[in-house]
């Protein structure tokens, strides 16, 4: 298979205005991925699927990822005038990266038997209206997986034929796989609590009526 740089330049040549960034993956797995802008993602993935060389006809896995607001600490070299002399000094700076939601597609080829080419798309924010283009018209396998991301992360996939909640019930309002989701507090009885669960369970222990069996539990949390 071609290198990711070649694929990137070919996408950019084929689709006018597409912005493709290679997201490095320094670990031993060495699976870097392509970050494609939302506007051209559909056309780019279509190119990957139909290109005679690549023939990435099989979309294996679609994953949602929630990235919270982060601050990255880094040192930058800045020129400052100290005691009348211009010097280059290191200064610690904090860069705030606003949070976003991400959809990661793992594409393989059953004809050429190569892969994966990993395609990522990012929403602009983590608000309720977060949206991405749907790949379901290209790959049927994305249908349920995008519904799952819609359900658990709250990403609206534009162009999806049947976008409904899939795992949770329809009346459910939260997106439970988001990192800032707070679970309903139903840990009141925990035989062996520890750490965080113990803290949560303790709150209930004090509310409980005196001794077991003496009076019925009238209020449930």
């Amino acid at each position, binding site marked *: 298979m071609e290198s990711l740089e070649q694929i990137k330049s070919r996408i950019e040549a084929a689709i006018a205005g597409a912005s493709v960034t290679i997201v490095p993956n320094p670990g031993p797995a060495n699976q870097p991925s392509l970050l494609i802008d939302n506007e051209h993602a559909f056309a780019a993935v279509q190119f990957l699927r139909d290109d005679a060389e690549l023939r990435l006809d099989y979309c294996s896995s679609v994953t949602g990822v929630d990235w919270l607001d982060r601050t990255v600490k880094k040192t930058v070299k800045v020129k400052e005038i100290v005691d009348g002399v211009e010097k280059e000094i290191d200064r610690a700076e904090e860069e705030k990266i606003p949070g976003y939601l991400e959809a990661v597609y793992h594409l393989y080829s059953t004809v050429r038997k190569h892969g994966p080419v990993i395609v990522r798309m990012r929403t602009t924010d983590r608000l309720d209206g977060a949206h991405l283009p749907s790949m379901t018209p290209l790959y049927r396998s994305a249908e349920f997986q995008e519904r799952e991301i819609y359900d658990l992360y709250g990403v609206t996939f534009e162009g999806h034929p049947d976008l409904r909640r899939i*795992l*949770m*019930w*329809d*009346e*459910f*309002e*939260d997106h*439970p796989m988001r990192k800032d*989701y707070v*679970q*309903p507090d*139903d*840990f*009141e*009885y*925990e*035989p062996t609590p520890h750490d965080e*669960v113990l803290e949560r369970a*303790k709150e209930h*222990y004090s509310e*409980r009526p*005196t*001794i*077991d*069996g003496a009076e*019925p*539990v*009238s*209020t*449930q*949390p």
Partner: protein
Amino acid sequence: MSEGVDEGLRSELQKQGVWVTSMQELYNWGRKNSIWPLQFGLACCAIEMIATAASRYDLARFGGEVFRPSPRQADLMIVAGTVTKKMAPQVVRLYNQMPDPKYVIAMGACAISGGPFKQGYNVLKGIDRYIPVDVYIPGCPPRPEALLHAFMELQRKIDEQKLTGAGKAEFLKPQQPSEFPVPAFGAHDLQPPSNPDVFRPPHLERA
């Protein structure tokens, strides 16, 4: 066991070829040896339940092989597996549809308390929050032998149920509810999160 018949007299009569029994004994003997479970599997434990009914463990030896797909024909609900919040209303509804007398075995850690998945947002922390449970079997999943043990425990429990008198079985009391409210899907959790008439969490003294 039987009320009113002296054990000594009974054994004496048996030697003469006269078999004395009571209505209650006969009734319970019949009930305990033909328990029809609801064919209803939720998760991993259901596979062990099938294994229990299959050739090697052979639940039929205890009269429990007639798995009924319809709750209307079932005596026993084996809650075999994780009850999720999405599934809990259906489990309660199935329980409500079963005719009295009915029994529940909570099979496995998940059905008892949520088990390894207890900290999941969609996992009910024990089916006994909504329906009364007769026998609990710990294990993840419990071995088929454990299910057989639970089955025998249930048989013992049925055998001890009294038909008359002050200590008569709960299901014979007219004021005893045989149906329990079905929880509704709420915006964040089930409504209510547990049925206070059924669920009394043990009080733990802890520092």
